[in-house]
């Protein structure tokens, strides 16, 4: 894989290969999630950047437009909004706990760092379509940023430091006061946990402190036809497929998922196992938002997943009773903590409405 893709993705693919070749994590690994260390001044700067529409080409959308804090920093609509002028073809996942991950995006195409994820989100034409050289100059035009970059030890505002500050902020977005972590689960949730690790078999993929093996699986989630029936979404999908170099993109009628990374047909329709933390806030579910509630998700797996020729052999009908399904949902909800919606997590100060002119411009250095 790394060799095949080296011209396009270089180290990324190699690094991703290393992650995926790691030994299988076993069920017993589920457990509390440690907080992450981060620098307060850098994270504060990252927070202001995350909510700032000036980080998109036409200054219309921010990171938070699709990673909405009111929805657990995920997209409240099945398919993300995308950049103005187009739509999108996947559901923006929560960025809470993203700092704990080793592989990002539903198809797992970035396995290096949040620095690279940040760059991809800001520059991709169907996402934020930002020429980062313009972004840098916008930031240098805002005295608040000039001060914040300096105070954070970054010197003057630059593209590279944006790609460091936003990940620093993301490190501050970790689950808080989770019943599972604190050992305060209800009796119902405790019964659900037993099913989770036993009869329902969820833990086969949803394991580790993040409740994900961070590997790609095909569970047969039905295609979201809005991707293809709505030309706004379809154009984003086509632009993505062209840029990624997926062959035969004009005829694709399904999301290729992890196939994009490996170009192995056996990986068609596989997506990286999502974390189960903060599900309370992040509906709708799955890479394309096809399942609206956790009841729907549990029902989906109880039926043995969806239909797909590549479907994982781990999936089979579970035979869960109605009360067992309720217990399982209660357990899933016990993996969500406090909503991260206060000023500690959300930038609430207004942004300047226009760019202040630099005084004495002719005399000062740019």
């Amino acid at each position, binding site marked *: 894989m790394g060799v095949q893709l080296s011209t396009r993705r270089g180290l990324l693919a190699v690094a991703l290969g290393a992650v995926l070749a790691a030994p299988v994590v076993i069920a017993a690994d589920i457990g509390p999630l440690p907080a992450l260390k981060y620098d307060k001044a850098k994270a504060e700067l990252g927070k202001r950047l995350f909510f700032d529409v000036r980080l998109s080409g*036409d200054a219309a959308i921010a990171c938070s437009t699709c990673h909405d804090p009111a929805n657990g920093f995920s997209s409240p609509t099945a398919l993300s909004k995308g950049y103005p002028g187009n739509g999108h073809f996947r559901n923006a996942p929560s960025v809470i706990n993203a700092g704990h991950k080793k592989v990002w995006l539903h198809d797992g195409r970035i396995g290096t760092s949040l620095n690279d994820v940040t760059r991809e989100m800001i520059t991709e034409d169907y996402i934020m379509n930002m*020429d980062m*050289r313009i972004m840098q100059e916008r930031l240098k035009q805002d005295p608040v940023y000039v001060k914040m970059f300096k105070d954070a030890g970054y010197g003057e505002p630059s593209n590279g430091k944006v790609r460091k500050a936003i990940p620093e902020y993301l490190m501050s977005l970790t689950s808080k006061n989770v019943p599972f972590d604190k050992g305060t689960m209800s009796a119902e949730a405790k019964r659900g946990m037993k099913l989770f690790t036993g009869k329902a078999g969820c833990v086969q993929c949803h394991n580790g402190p993040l409740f994900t093996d961070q590997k790609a699986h095909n569970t047969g989630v039905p295609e979201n036809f809005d991707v293809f029936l709505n030309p706004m979404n379809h154009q984003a999908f086509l632009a993505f497929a062209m840029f990624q170099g997926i062959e035969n993109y004009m005829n694709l009628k399904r999301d290729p998922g992890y196939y994009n990374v490996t170009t192995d047909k056996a990986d068609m329709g596989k997506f990286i196992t999502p974390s189960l933390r903060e599900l309370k806030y992040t509906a709708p579910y799955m890479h394309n938002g096809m399942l609206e509630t956790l009841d729907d998700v549990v029902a989906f797996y109880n039926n043995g997943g969806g239909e797909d020729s590549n479907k994982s052999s781990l999936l089979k009908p579970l035979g869960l009773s109605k009360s067992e399904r309720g217990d399982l949902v209660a357990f899933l909800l016990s993996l969500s903590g406090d909503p991260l919606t206060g000023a500690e997590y959300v930038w609430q100060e207004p942004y300047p409405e226009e760019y202040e002119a630099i005084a004495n411009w002719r005399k000062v250095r740019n």
Partner: protein
Amino acid sequence: MINNKARNTQSALQRVRDRKGSLGFMILPVVLLAGLGTGCATQTQASAMAAGAEVTSGPPPLAPLGPPPIPLDNKQSPEKIELGKLLFFDVRLGGDASTGCSTCHEPTQGWAWAEDFSRGYPGTVHWRNSQTIINSAYYPRLFWAGSSSSLENQARAAARGGVAGNGENDIMEARLALIPEYVTRFRDVFGTEWPLIRDAWRAISAYERTLVQRDTPLDKYLQGDKSALTEQQVRGKKLYEGKAGCIQCHNGAMATDFSYYNIGVPPNRRWEEDGLAQVTFRFEQYAKGQTEEGYRKAKSDWGFYYRTKNKWDRGKFRTPSLRYTMYTAPYMHNGVFYTMEEVVDFYNRGGLDEEGRTTPFPENKSKFIRPLGLTGEEKEDLIAFIEAFSGEEILVSPPELPNYAPLFTKQELMEAKK
């Protein structure tokens, strides 16, 4: 005038000698021979033309405009032109589907934009004046510093530029594929299964090659209709070709020598007062490959320098055509002059604005630019003549654009193998 030209020519050749040592001595006789043998009209190299001019009779005369050159690799056809017209007006050929060619080249604003700086992509402002599309077909190079070598490349560069269209090839090509009428039209014109974005630039260029004006009062006059110019305009023509010296650069059928000069235009004051313009200013220094030190200290548009990186090219811009200028105010690469009166006053002062401001690179200022001593009446005559470079206003109604449609039916999606 001739003396000035000769001096300029010699300094140009001196530079060649300075840079290339003895090579310059080899070039000189060749240029002179070429000038003697063919006259100056066919020379396009600035130095060659100037050298020819020195020996023969001066700059190429004004001439009626012939048909535009058509590149052999992008021939005209009615179908291609029609497609190009649709695309010219289609704002989906830009980043957020709001900014197409016509956004900054608006037919009712002289196929340009009637502000000093072009309006730019949403969230930005441009840093140069938008130039008219009319007669753009005749320019060998496009943009104010000549950075594009063809209309096709200009269309592409403008659609992709961060403060212009800010469009990426992928998304623009994807949009074309989802507009069935375009799929059919591109297939008919270019023979491809799906539209290719580079063919969009070719079609747009074919349309632009129809946006020419060859029947101005001046064209008619030069073709023998002596009634096409007023007496005042005829007096203005004499000044243009004589005392005012305009013809030194604004010569030939397009009233431009397509060369680069620093004429002393002062920087636009907007950079001192407008934060958004300051953002773009620095971005351009960055994007055009300035050195770190250049980026830090630049306080004006260095123009032709960005292409050559020669310090003597700082502040030089390509001589614009004077055709259609009746409709294309404001003037100059940065739109600092809103009327032709201001432009003529600027030249009459020898390249100074009314406050005495000029280029930050006076050492590069063309020797052609000197106080002209034109009287009030002479200035009026000159302006009257410059109006003869414009015919009727060219206006078209924006076409009705084809819609997006899904590529697949729900049935086809349901039947797709998973």
